């Protein structure tokens, strides 16, 4: 029986890969330019594998820090970002980067705060929601639907998001630290490395890691070091003193505590870098700057924005493509989703099978499903009523937060910071504030649930 189940799981895992391959070949046979969107799908597949294998969820970075005092994921994302920032500097210096900084302003902090509230309630960030959907998690699937429709409705309703974009967000300055410090574009590798990687990413990363070590991880690590030192003392005793070397050893212990997460962080950083390079190379190959140009050339003019573009970031991104699928569905019910800046002028509403970034998201789900099936971790979990409420509410908040900040934990934080945009840190801090508030709420809620269970150990023990 167990062997049969294993065989079935393996069959489905390899079927996922097989279906991806067949669809890729079919796309290519229709028109070689579809290689451009196939590339997105396969990079998504790679992200999905790494996210699921590494249990790599940005929500848990802040959440587990506040909720259970665990630094595992906080370390993971800092490592991923440091690695990615070095690769980004090399790509920028060689004119192979697709990255553009976003408008720098308080909207990033506020958007991060709303997003942070949502991600803890939903049980996963924007990328976490995708890979957990691939694991068969019904709550994450509901959150995914909520992110899609909340964004689509939010950017279209009453036109006030247009006012926010025109009146506040668009006029804000856009720059990377390297551009600000060394002046202008087309800088040298050393300048990109010092400005974007060292100053904007690696130094703040080390500061955040040091704070996490000092305030969260240190107590238990130091306790073990002291116990070890005390055991090595002669019988007549003596004082145990902690040296700087001990603290550095403790810091390293924190970094390597979860090898799987840290390794996933390194690999995600590398893949994200290769992804940027590959998309820029494909743009050069096909002579386009945006996939909308290819769609117009093929006659799909209804799918692009007024500028002739679709959402085509050229790097890892999550939420805008979800808004587009939400808008695409709402259009089928008669909504006019194009009378706004976001869809009408900026991103268009391509058919799902023409949507480059959406194929990347589908790739993430399939990659996560394949690895979860192989590792016997795939299980469909229908949400309970309680979790459905948290999933939908969390998804709505993540959707709204992502639009206010012009991105999620990937587009507004991970990519932005590693690309040298200081605004990414504003989103990160906002995300932390929101996560703290939601953790406090869930602490209260779980305590209440445990009381309802009438779980009283003291009474039960004789």
């Amino acid at each position, binding site marked *: 029986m167990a062997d049969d189940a294993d065989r079935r799981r393996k069959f489905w895992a390899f079927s996922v890969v097989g279906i991806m391959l067949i669809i890729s070949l079919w796309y290519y046979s229709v028109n070689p330019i579809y290689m451009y969107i196939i590339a997105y799908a396969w990079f998504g597949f790679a992200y999905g594998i790494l996210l699921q294998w590494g249990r790599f969820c940005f929500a848990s970075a802040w959440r587990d820090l506040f909720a*259970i005092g665990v630094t595992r994921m906080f370390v993971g994302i800092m490592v991923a970002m440091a690695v990615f920032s070095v690769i980004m500097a090399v790509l920028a210096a060689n004119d192979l980067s697709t990255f553009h900084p976003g408008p720098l302003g308080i909207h990033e902090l506020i958007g991060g705060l709303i997003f942070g509230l949502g991600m803890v309630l939903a049980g996963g960030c924007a990328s976490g929601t995708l890979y957990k959907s691939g694991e068969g998690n019904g709550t994450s699937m509901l959150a995914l639907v909520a992110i899609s429709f909340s964004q689509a409705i939010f950017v279209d309703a009453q036109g006030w998001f247009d006012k926010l974009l025109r009146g506040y967000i668009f006029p804000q300055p856009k720059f990377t630290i390297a551009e600000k410090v060394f002046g202008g574009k087309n800088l040298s590798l050393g300048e990109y490395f010092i400005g974007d990687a060292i100053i904007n990413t690696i130094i703040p990363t080390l500061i955040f890691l040091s704070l996490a070590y000092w305030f969260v991880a240190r107590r238990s690590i130091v306790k073990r070091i002291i116990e070890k030192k005390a055991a090595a003392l002669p019988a007549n005793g003596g004082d145990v003193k902690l040296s700087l070397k001990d603290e550095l050893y403790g810091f390293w212990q924190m970094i390597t505590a979860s090898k799987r997460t840290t390794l996933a962080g390194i690999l995600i950083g590398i893949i994200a870098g290769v992804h940027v390079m590959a998309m820029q190379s494909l743009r050069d190959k096909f002579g386009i700057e945006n996939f909308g140009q290819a769609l117009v050339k093929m006659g799909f003019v209804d799918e692009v924005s007024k500028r002739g573009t679709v959402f085509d970031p050229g790097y890892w991104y999550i939420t805008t493509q979800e808004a587009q699928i939400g808008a695409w569905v709402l259009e089928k019910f008669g909504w006019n989703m194009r009378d706004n800046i976001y869809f009408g002028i900026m991103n268009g509403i391509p058919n799902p099978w023409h949507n480059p970034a959406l194929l990347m998201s589908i790739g993430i789900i399939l990659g996560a499903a394949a690895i979860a099936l192989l590792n016997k971790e795939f299980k469909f979990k229908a949400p309970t009523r309680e979790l459905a409420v948290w999933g939908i509410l969390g998804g709505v908040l993540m959707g709204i937060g992502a639009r206010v900040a012009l991105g999620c934990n990937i587009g507004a934080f991970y990519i932005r910071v590693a690309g040298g945009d200081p605004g990414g840190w504003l989103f990160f801090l906002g995300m932390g504030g929101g996560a703290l508030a939601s953790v406090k709420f869930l602490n209260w809620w779980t305590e209440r649930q445990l009381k309802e269970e009438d779980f009283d150990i003291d009474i039960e023990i004789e």
Partner: protein
Amino acid sequence: MKVKKLENGVYQLDVKGYVCPHPQLYTMKTLQKLKSGDILEVLFDNPSSEESITALCDKEGHEIVERRSDGGTFIYRIKKA
């Protein structure tokens, strides 16, 4: 979520179906109510919680005396420090 006493000093926490952060949060809170040396058997099916519960036990000094998985469900037996 269900908590039950299996025998003296051995308890079971069933958080199957829950997503993050509930499994790790319930595990931490339940362990806080136990005595040193008590065993808590945690049943969960959210793979992400695996690493978080391991890190939590490592940090607090609790020993995971047994780890099993069965059809997507993880079963951890944790001895409280």
